[in-house]
């Protein structure tokens, strides 16, 4: 990531991630400016213990429960994580030895909070510690349910979503509920209003609806980093199913989010849902039929949905890195310290995507570079060679100053690429102008004939008497 970006005192908990930023380290490897190297040296100790920039997926996860029975009731989910190579550490949320970091270094790369009713974490963990964990670029999954405590709700609030204030309210949907044997209160919802993003949910379309039973949350309008991945149908509302509705529900329709994700500016990823059962073996295994739909699926979409989304959350997908940001004068190979106005230059950058195992070339036709000084003077779309190398060339504008090459690439689900590289542009030197201008030939002629004339005149005047 670019140096200017590092200074970003965002008051929210989502401030820049230094240690985990793979771009920074990759840029440094390709011997860039002294600054980048310097910043990497500063970050090195942290990097070495966190995941390596070569493989940005998380490795060590901490799972917190209210009671350990969840370990077996949600075993499919955990086993799938284990089979993907994660190292899970199960603990009770009120375990007195709980700690996320030791000697200033984080012990885990990700945190899964399956402890909705915990009022107070044990050990050294508290709200601030969780937020610091995220602020330092680590990932988080929060699952709440109807018993959600204020603590869990406030963690979610800090991440940009607000759970329903009413503690007894559940999401109710009389139209797209899941058909089960008996006519229930329609709190078991078959949701299929997914976000359209291959990055978040994988390339295989999720056919079956996802079963959901839990509480509603809405997105904080001021936070533009949070996204609804699974939203409720327009007919849904959030209310207490066992009591008669006396006043209009505060959350209705598709403003209700069932599952949301956040990608912070430091690329920390967070998943929030109001249903702990979403991850349970029971929901994974159960068949589903959406009310009003004739088709009955043998297996709900939960397993696929959770697996794909957890791949995204734990950086197995959608993680980009930009390396080898290079620029040079047309026809040269070395990177200059300064350009002159009207120089022609070549610009290139390599962008790769992490596939979970290796870095694959990222192919897109919408990556742009700006040549920026307070406003972009040049904005060019980069062409790529399908091998990850993006390239363009342009002419430096006729303006001097301190410019920046800026690549700002923010796409849904992908880590945001914010690269900038400072480069001053100087005006012409005194000997870079044309020496003789054609338009000035009359003046040259005038001055020389004047000199000659004066010489002859003096000669004649002095000696002709």
């Amino acid at each position, binding site marked *: 990531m670019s*140096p200017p970006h590092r*200074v970003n005192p965002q008051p929210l908990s989502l401030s820049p991630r230094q240690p985990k930023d793979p771009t920074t380290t990759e840029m440094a490897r390709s011997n860039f400016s002294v600054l980048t190297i*310097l910043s990497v040296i500063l970050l090195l100790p942290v990097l070495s213990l966190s995941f390596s920039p070569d493989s940005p997926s998380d490795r060590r996860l901490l799972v917190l429960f209210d009671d350990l029975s969840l370990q077996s009731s949600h075993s499919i989910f955990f086993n799938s994580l284990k089979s993907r190579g994660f190292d899970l550490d199960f603990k009770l949320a009120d375990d007195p030895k709980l700690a996320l970091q030791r000697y200033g270094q984080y012990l885990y790369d990700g945190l899964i909070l399956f402890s909705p009713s915990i009022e107070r974490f044990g050990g050294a963990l508290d709200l601030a510690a969780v937020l610091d964990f995220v602020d330092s670029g680590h990932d988080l999954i929060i699952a709440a349910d109807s018993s959600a405590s204020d603590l869990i709700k406030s963690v979610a609030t800090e991440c940009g979503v607000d759970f329903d204030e009413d503690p007894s309210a559940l999401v109710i949907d009389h139209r797209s509920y899941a058909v089960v044997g008996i006519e229930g209160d329609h709190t078991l919802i078959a949701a299929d209003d997914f976000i359209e993003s291959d990055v978040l949910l994988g390339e295989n379309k999720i056919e079956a609806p996802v079963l959901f039973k839990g509480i509603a949350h809405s997105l904080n309008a001021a936070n533009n980093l949070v996204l609804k991945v699974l939203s409720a149908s327009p007919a849904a509302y959030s209310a207490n199913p066992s009591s008669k509705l006396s006043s209009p529900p505060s959350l209705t329709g598709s403003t209700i989010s069932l599952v949301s994700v956040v990608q912070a500016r430091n690329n920390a990823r967070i998943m929030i849902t109001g249903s702990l059962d979403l991850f349970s073996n029971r929901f994974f295994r159960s068949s589903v039929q959406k009310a009003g739909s004739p088709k009955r699926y043998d297996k709900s979409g939960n397993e696929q949905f959770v697996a794909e989304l957890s791949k995204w959350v734990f950086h197995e997908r959608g993680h980009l890195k930009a390396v080898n940001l290079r620029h040079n004068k047309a026809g040269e190979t070395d990177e200059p310290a300064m350009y002159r106005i009207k120089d022609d230059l070549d610009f290139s950058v390599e962008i790769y995507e992490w596939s979970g195992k290796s870095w694959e070339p990222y192919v897109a036709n919408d990556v742009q570079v700006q040549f920026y000084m307070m406003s972009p003077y040049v904005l060019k779309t980069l062409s790529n060679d399908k091998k990850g190398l993006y390239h363009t060339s342009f002419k430096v504008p006729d303006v*001097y*100053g*301190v410019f*920046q090459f800026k690549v700002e690439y923010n796409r849904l689900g992908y880590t945001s690429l914010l690269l900038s590289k400072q480069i001053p542009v100087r005006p012409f030197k005194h000997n870079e102008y044309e020496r003789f201008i054609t338009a000035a030939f009359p003046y040259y002629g005038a001055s020389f004939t004047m000199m000659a004339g004066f010489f002859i005149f003096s000669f004649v005047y002095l000696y002709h008497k």
Partner: protein
Amino acid sequence: MAVTKTEPINGSTTKSSAPPSTSMPLKSDLLSILSLKSLRLKTKQQELLIRVSILCLVYVLAFITRLFSVLRYESMIHEFDPYFNYRTTLFLTQKGFYEFWNWFDSESWYPLGRIIGGTLYPGLMVTAAMMYWGLRFLRFAVHIREVCVLTAPFFASNTTLVAYFFGKEIWDTGAGLVAAVLIAICPGYISRSVAGSYDNEGVAIFALLLTFYLFVKAVNTGSLAWGLASAFGYFYMVSAWGGYVFIINLIPLYVLALLITGRYSMRLYVAYNCMYVLGMLLAMQIRFVGFQHVQSGEHMAAMGVFFLMQVFYFLDWVKHLLNDKKLFEAFLRITVTCAVGVGAIALGVGTASGYISPWSGRFYSLLDPTYAKDHIPIIASVSEHQPTAWSSFMFDFHILLFLFPAGLYFCFKRLSDATIFIVMYGLTSMYFAGVMVRLILVATPAVCLISAIAVSATIKNLTMLLRTKSKVSQTGSTKGTGGGKTSSKAMLDQSQPFQRNGAIALLFGAFYLLSRYAIHCTWVTSEAYSSPSIVLAARGAHGNRVIFDDYREAYYWLRQNTPPDAKVMSWWDYGYQITAMGNRTVIVDNNTWNNTHIATVGRAMSSYEDEAYEIMRSLDVDYVLVVFGGVTGYSSDDINKFLWMVRIGGGVFPVIKEPDYLVNGEYRVDKVCSPPRV
């Protein structure tokens, strides 16, 4: 006689007993050596010797009196602008002239950058670099900082020499010597030329006086060579300081005055044309000035007078050819009307088409002191641009303030081309000194010269009285310029019995005043003008000196603890110091060439934190430097300057309104402070 009249003055003004004690043995030596020679020759040689030794002493005195700051603190660069000059000089000595000339500095005015080579007056840096290279060539291993620190005192010494010659040119050698002594220690000049005050003014006053001297010399002699010399002096002045505009306006004004008073002469024609044409061509070689001489409204007076001179010369020639007086008068009328008409049309067309730029804000504010206050807060905000208080006149000139009118009287009494010049110089510069504090500096040489005429003439008259009484036989041998007048005075004096006693009393009075002047000057220099202002000194509770070196510590911190390409935002006062000492990129600095940029910073400083944050993000600011003097009682901190940030910001961004920052029309920083303040 010259000997007796100059010696006591020197003795009293230098305040040291050195000149009398050295000159007396010298005189006796001389007497013993030259006893065989004729008396007349001996007197002349004595006079020369004493004059030279006095000048040498004054030369040294002017240098050492400016070293207080080095002794008190250390050999360091003072204040704000000198740090920029130092940085550029360093660059010049390291990278050479062409790199300096083409220097594009990306460390200041981020992100705009600044073309340093094209936006500074290189005279000072080139001078210092030449001295540095010269010393290196002579195998003196000096550091460039030492050269920079001592440049201003060195040029102050040179100024005393020029003042001597100038005084000699306009009055006589006595006046020249007195002028040299007065200017050597005049606080108005010392304020800008103490060691470490490495600013343009340091060399510019030398160049200014030199140009004037050479021009007056050219007018007096009518010699092309002196005119050429004054053109070069002008070139040096243009290369050194923006104050050259004063020269290019004063000289035409002077020429115009001579034309009007019927003192037009061939000498004047030669001097002015040579000086103007060559000076203009030379001045165009300075990148920062460029084509201003033909394009800027401030320089149009000189050009107008130049053409007027040609018209005058032409008329003179026609008059010479035409014997018919009536015909000539008719011709005169037509020519003058035509010339004025053509000039007016040319000026009008030039201004309307934008070829001739209008007067700059600074120039306006000189003519109309209230202009800057109403229109350009950035000029009004600088403390040295404030109108001068009476006390600072007294502080900077002391008795010269009273001697100045007396000198004018003497000048008017013996009107010549040269005295008219010094009178005009004195009067105009005094007016400008009243408008802006820092222009006291320009007035100082004029005031010193005119006062020197007063002192010299008075004392000469008084001593003449004494001499005619006591040594009537020697009156015949009195030489000097006022010989004829004094003899008639002497005749008159014999009828007044108390003349002699009165003269003695007056002489003592004059010496007393001059000695007070010397004491005052030394006191002012040591107490007021030798502070580097970057290191603060205060008296502790027990009378001990407390040194605050917080500024340099802060800049050093920046240098050591921030990334090398960090951008530091501060109010523009500290820009030069941050780049020079902290070696970090700044957003704005003391070269206030882009008002909008400064206003943006002012806006960021005076908005709420969230708005300010956005502005700073857009400028890529990494650090903000603010100065708070509340703990040490340092008065010129950012809280003191805050209203100017508001005003300058509000000048460009009307969102910022000054009344929002005031409580009941008052500016306060305590509990009842106004809401928008961060």
